[in-house]
């Protein structure tokens, strides 16, 4: 029999606040965390808006002695992990530490460290790199830092699949617990891509909006970059019940697929396959799904494709779904996005409120579903899915079920 896996803790740092509670308060209020860029000089940038984590003082959260080892993406991961672990009450001991692991998704690794290093060498003429460059920038740094901080000795690794990294990471953690390789996993995603060069490379792709992010709205102009992290404590049901943990939702399934098509253009067949697999993995019929937290980037191509894919998977039931895009408020934090969006899903189970799609102005005939425009809705949901469809055609969808 497959082991059931439940969520017993969550934490976040995002453009809407430095905790999951603040992030959720913003999402539920339909408040956007997108605004003028303040953390880097924006004068030479074409796109001057982003979802930045503001007023973040790493020294207020983290041991100053460890800070030289922590790129911003590791700092975010540690802040979110701390909150998740505190909420869950999970503690490593000599008996259980080898049964707790960490999986962290990140698409862009330590961008700020790379950029600082290049600036030193190419602009300032320095001849040597900082000795901590490698341990700071490596994609797996946040995973290692969390494991070190909490003494988790179980299976731990990082996952990278661009904008689907967090969902793939959570799917891998689910599999690790189901297979009995661990009893509990800390899983999520982190990203800090908002360096000057980070903005420039995304500008160059010409997929960015300059006004704001308006997913599924007819006048949408593209995506807006974001940053942050969210982490979850996942446990086997028995493990959670044995220690009397509060269970927020069941992580009932995951579905993954690859378009194996275009490196940037999404394919509705690939997205639909991932959703169908996520439902069958959870043993859920399409008609049981109440809420879809969409990938919803706000690019003309994604939102049209995602709507098409939802029609393919849900048929007539698609019209009954509540669909919303948290990226309208968080921006697109790439490898962290699936984890931050899972906060909206877990809190929906907890509070009975669905966060809206903000900045929605006008329906698009090609996007003809119920996108919860601008206003949160009270709705006690039973089953939800959360979509992530990455550049390069890598898709990962999570299915969550109310735990009774």
């Amino acid at each position, binding site marked *: 029999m497959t082991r059931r896996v439940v969520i017993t803790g969550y934490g976040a740092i995002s453009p809407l606040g430095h905790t999951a509670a603040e992030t959720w308060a913003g999402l539920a209020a339909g408040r956007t965390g997108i605004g003028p860029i303040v953390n880097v000089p924006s004068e030479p940038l074409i796109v001057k808006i982003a979802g930045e984590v503001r007023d973040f003082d790493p020294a207020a959260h983290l041991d100053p*002695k460890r800070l*030289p*080892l922590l790129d911003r993406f590791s700092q975010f991961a540690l802040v979110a992990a701390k909150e998740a672990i505190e909420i869950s009450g999970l503690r490593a001991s000599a008996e259980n530490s080898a049964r707790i692991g960490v999986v962290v998704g990140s698409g862009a690794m330590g961008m700020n460290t790379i950029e600082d290093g290049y600036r030193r060498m190419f602009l300032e003429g*320095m*001849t*040597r790199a900082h*000795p*901590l460059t490698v*341990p700071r920038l490596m994609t797996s740094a946040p995973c290692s830092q969390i494991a070190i901080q909490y003494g988790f000795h179980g299976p731990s690794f990082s996952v990278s699949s661009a904008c689907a990294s967090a969902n793939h990471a959570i799917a891998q953690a689910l599999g690790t617990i189901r297979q009995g390789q661990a009893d509990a996993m800390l899983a999520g995603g982190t990203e800090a891509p908002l360096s000057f060069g980070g903005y420039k490379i995304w500008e160059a792709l010409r997929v960015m909006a300059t006004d704001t992010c308006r997913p599924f709205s007819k006048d949408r102009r593209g995506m807006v970059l974001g940053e942050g992290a969210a982490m979850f404590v996942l446990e086997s049901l028995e493990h959670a019940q044995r220690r009397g943990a509060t269970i927020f939702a069941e992580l009932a399934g995951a579905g993954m697929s690859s378009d194996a098509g275009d490196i940037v253009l999404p394919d509705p067949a690939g997205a639909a396959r991932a959703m169908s697999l996520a439902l069958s993995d959870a043993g859920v019929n399409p008609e049981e799904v109440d809420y879809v937290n969409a990938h919803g980037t706000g690019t003309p191509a994604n939102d049209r494709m995602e709507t098409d894919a939802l029609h393919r998977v849900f048929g007539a039931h698609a019209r009954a779904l509540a669909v919303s895009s948290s990226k309208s408020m968080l921006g697109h934090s790439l490898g962290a996005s699936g984890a931050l969006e899972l906060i909206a899903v877990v809190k929906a189970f907890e509070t009975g409120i669905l966060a809206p799609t903000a900045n929605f102005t006008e329906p698009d005939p090609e996007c003809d579903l119920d996108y919860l425009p601008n206003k949160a809705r009270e709705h006690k949901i039973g089953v939800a899915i959360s979509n992530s469809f990455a550049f390069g055609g890598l898709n990962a969808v999570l299915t969550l079920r109310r735990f009774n």
Partner: protein
Amino acid sequence: MSDIETNIIDIISKEGSIDREKIKPESTLKDLEIPSLDVVQIVFAIEDKFNISIPYNDPGFDVNSVAGLVTCVEKLVAQNKPAA
């Protein structure tokens, strides 16, 4: 105490988070319980400060004690060897 020695002790104190008074010329970095990651940062900071390049794995250069580091830096500064 030479300027070089003063500077080196300052750097060890800062990068290793060690009270300055505890650092003596004869101290080895091991005596001072400086972790290896801090050692590479100390060497890096010294290189930056004096604009030199301290060779590694070279038995002619002792980077494991305060006195050894002072000798290294004096030798390299005297050669006025620009960073490689």
